[in-house]
């Protein structure tokens, strides 16, 4: 047991050395490290709680996704029925989770046959295999009911999140923020993390806006006041102005002339005459053609620019706009014009997103936490080292060396994994010091017992290691289970704690089984003690 072959010793030292080596980039400034080869650049990433920054968790509005899906289905049903030339007893209408259409009894079979292609098999996602996008049933009495299935909604939600991640990425990058991270989380969530951002108000405004832009004609067949009192015409609706615009009501046609998807560019700028901030835009070819057509036909009529169900402005068409470009003015500030341009360039979010969790740490607090964490770690380590040497003498020095290498290895492994170090993560490391010392204490106490029961020093050391290691393994595995559970249930900072604690346990077991033994074996070989005094 105490004899360790040269090869084994070399392997142990090499492992420890390589692990510690990975920790090296952490001690150099980032600029220096960037010039190193890629494999040597791995380093510990400071969590948002340490470097400061914003963590924003958004969730796709399930009702919005459902509503859109049902509206599309309703449009599809309307189109299919029209193409089939079937007379409808009642037009397709949304009822709960379904679209219902009533046809004459004699037409039911034909209608069902025509509608069937609307139900498509879903892609091969696990759980949704074999499911179809729409359930079509004959509810009797000429009623045909088309229900959107849960798997179809789920798949749509998944798509919405994927698209949203992309769009948010474009928006955040356009805002010029440094190293933002935008990730899908679970099925219906997006996590946005921006290091260094201490005030996310602007960011939330930008990523929380759907930015659905439409150009629509103002309905002049009756005045707004009339429409408010009576009913608006069936193809028109009342839309209110934005806050900057004064929340005035407008009567707009439901038909969309051109929508934001047909924009190719949008830039903030200033109106040449008034000097007020504006957003200038450019349509793609088909958008430009449609816009030119409508403006030619409607000279003298007002049209409205609508963003997310709010009218930004409603200018009068003075002349046909043929160039495919134009400008929006709507009492903007420089900032809001800039944000709108970003939003229009990045495109609209496919569904509404809501902020459900927001955690922001200012850079000052982060720096404080790092310094306090460092101080506590150094002080804790010093106390432990002094106590161990006080208690175990030379063996205490051995233990301290082992614990030191242990910590080096933890940092090395954290760096290799590019893991995130959080404040609870630092606590995890400090606690690892405690656990690592415990493994040494277990070994030494066991050796002492063996000495007292009359064994020779070398025998006692041998037996002490063998017996203590079994205990170390058992006790560490139980702690490791707790760490693993924390890792799977925890988020953010708590997960950071679980990571360092877990890695710490692994390195502790490694050092106890190999390094500590190696050091003691060398010492025994060198000192050849006839008497042991670990007391």
């Amino acid at each position: 047991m105490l004899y360790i072959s040269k090869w084994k010793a070399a392997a142990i030292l090499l492992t420890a050395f390589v692990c510690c080596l990975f920790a090296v980039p952490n001690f150099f400034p980032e600029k220096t490290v960037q010039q190193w080869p890629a494999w040597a650049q791995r380093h510990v990433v400071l969590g948002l709680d340490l470097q400061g920054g914003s963590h924003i968790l958004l969730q796709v509005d399930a009702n919005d996704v459902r509503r859109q899906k049902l509206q599309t289905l309703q449009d599809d049903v309307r189109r299919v029925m029209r193409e089939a030339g079937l007379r409808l007893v009642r037009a397709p209408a949304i009822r709960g989770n379904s679209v219902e259409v009533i046809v004459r009894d004699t037409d039911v079979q034909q209608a069902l046959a025509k509608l069937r292609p609307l139900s498509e098999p879903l892609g091969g996602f696990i759980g949704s295999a074999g499911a179809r996008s729409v359930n079509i049933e004959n509810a009797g009495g000429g009623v045909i009911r088309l229900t959107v299935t849960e798997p179809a909604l789920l798949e749509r939600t998944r798509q919405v999140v994927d698209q949203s991640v992309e769009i948010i990425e474009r928006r955040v990058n356009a805002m010029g923020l440094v190293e933002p991270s935008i990730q899908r989380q679970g099925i219906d969530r997006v996590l946005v993390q921006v290091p260094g951002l201490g005030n996310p108000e602007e960011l939330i405004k930008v990523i929380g806006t759907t930015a659905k832009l439409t150009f629509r004609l103002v309905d002049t067949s009756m005045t707004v006041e009339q429409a408010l009192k009576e009913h608006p015409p069936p193809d028109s609706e009342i839309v209110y102005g934005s806050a900057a615009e004064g929340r005035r009501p407008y009567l707009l046609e439901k038909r969309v002339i051109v929508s934001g998807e047909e924009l190719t560019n949008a830039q903030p700028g200033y109106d040449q005459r008034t000097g007020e901030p504006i957003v200038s835009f450019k349509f793609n070819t088909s958008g430009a053609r449609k816009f030119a057509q409508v403006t030619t036909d409607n000279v003298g009529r007002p049209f409205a620019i609508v963003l997310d169900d709010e009218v930004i402005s409603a200018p009068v068409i003075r002349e046909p706009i043929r160039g495919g470009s134009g400008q929006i003015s709507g009492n903007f500030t420089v900032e809001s014009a800039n944000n709108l341009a970003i939003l229009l360039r990045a495109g609209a979010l496919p569904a509404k997103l809501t902020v459900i969790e927001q955690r922001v740490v200012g850079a000052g607090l982060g720096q404080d936490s790092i310094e306090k964490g460092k101080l506590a770690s150094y002080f804790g380590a010093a106390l432990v080292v002094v106590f161990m040497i006080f208690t175990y003498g030379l063996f205490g020095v051995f233990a301290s060396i082992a614990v030191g290498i242990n910590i080096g290895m933890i940092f090395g492994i954290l760096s290799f994994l590019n893991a995130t170090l959080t404040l609870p993560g630092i606590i995890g490391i400090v606690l690892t010091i405690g656990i690592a010392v415990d493994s040494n204490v277990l070994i030494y106490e066991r050796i002492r017992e063996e000495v007292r029961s009359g064994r020779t020093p070398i025998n006692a050391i041998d037996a002490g290691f063998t017996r203590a290691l079994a205990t170390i393994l058992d006790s560490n595995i139980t702690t490791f289970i707790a760490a693993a559970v924390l890792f799977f249930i925890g988020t953010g900072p708590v997960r950071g704690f679980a990571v360092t604690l877990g890695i710490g346990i692994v390195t502790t077991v490694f050092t106890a089984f190999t390094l500590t033994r190696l050091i003691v074996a060398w010492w025994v070989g060198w000192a050849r003690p006839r008497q042991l005094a670990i007391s």
Partner: protein
Amino acid sequence: MRLHPSIPLMRIVPDDTKFDFMRFRRISFPVSALLSIAAIFLYFFHGLNFGIDFIGGTLLEVQSKSGPADLAKMRATLGGLGLGEVQLQQFGGPEDVLIRVAQQPGGEEAQQAALAKVRQALGNDVDIRREEVVGPRVSKELLAYSTVGLMLAIFAILIYLWFRFEWQFALGAMIANVHDLVLTIGYMSLTQIDFDLSSIAALLTILGYSLNDTVVIYDRIREMLRRYKRMAMPDLLNISVNSTLSRSIITHVTVTLALLALLLFGGHAIHSFVATMIFGVVLVGTYTSVFIAAPILIYLGVGTARVEAEERVPAQQPART
């Protein structure tokens, strides 16, 4: 040939202690039972001071730009916003204030609106050092995950111990650990320490450490059971606890030293975490392993089957090591 260099050494625990720990079970069991009941009462009638992680709401840590913060003035300003309960608390230095706004009715967006109002009301007099908004959906999830996580951890550890030891040991360890968790939760209720995500981390670490301790003693008991086949259980347990005593004490001193360093220098953010750990690991965990986990094995019938089997086959020589 050289001897071990002579360094003046401190002997923390004398060798060959012979404390009769098992006798205390007549005291420790009723005391623990009473304390556990008290803790459960506290939990139900005094409650935990749930942080926004679990009940949702808004939290801001602000620092006054001009000298010590005027709590009364801030309380008046924020109280007038119509946001329901607003708690203010000195946090660290006299400039630092922790503001907690209860969860607003009206879903996720209402929380954002509340934050905006608070920000505006505070104006430019303060630096916002930290702000957290946890919506109703996330807080419900976190609470559910954490509860499930704790249960899962206990269960997983139980299974592991059952494989490594006999079922009595697993059961004994579980009773001991549930006892630890119950007392710690009672402590958290009594002191009204913030109960947030890091408290769950603290509870799980306490669980891990306390098990660590229990396992070390159980390991020794198992070894002794193999070695002394005829010894009465209370004696055997006493020897086991006594022979691991110095390790227990030295280890706990080191862990305490590390925790004390965190408590003194780690800052306010981790204060409640560390305080809970000190209570759970140092005070409760150690006591439990010695006075609950070990003696409970007597009641769970460890060793009785062994003695009876021995008596039935008297010809067999007890093995000696």
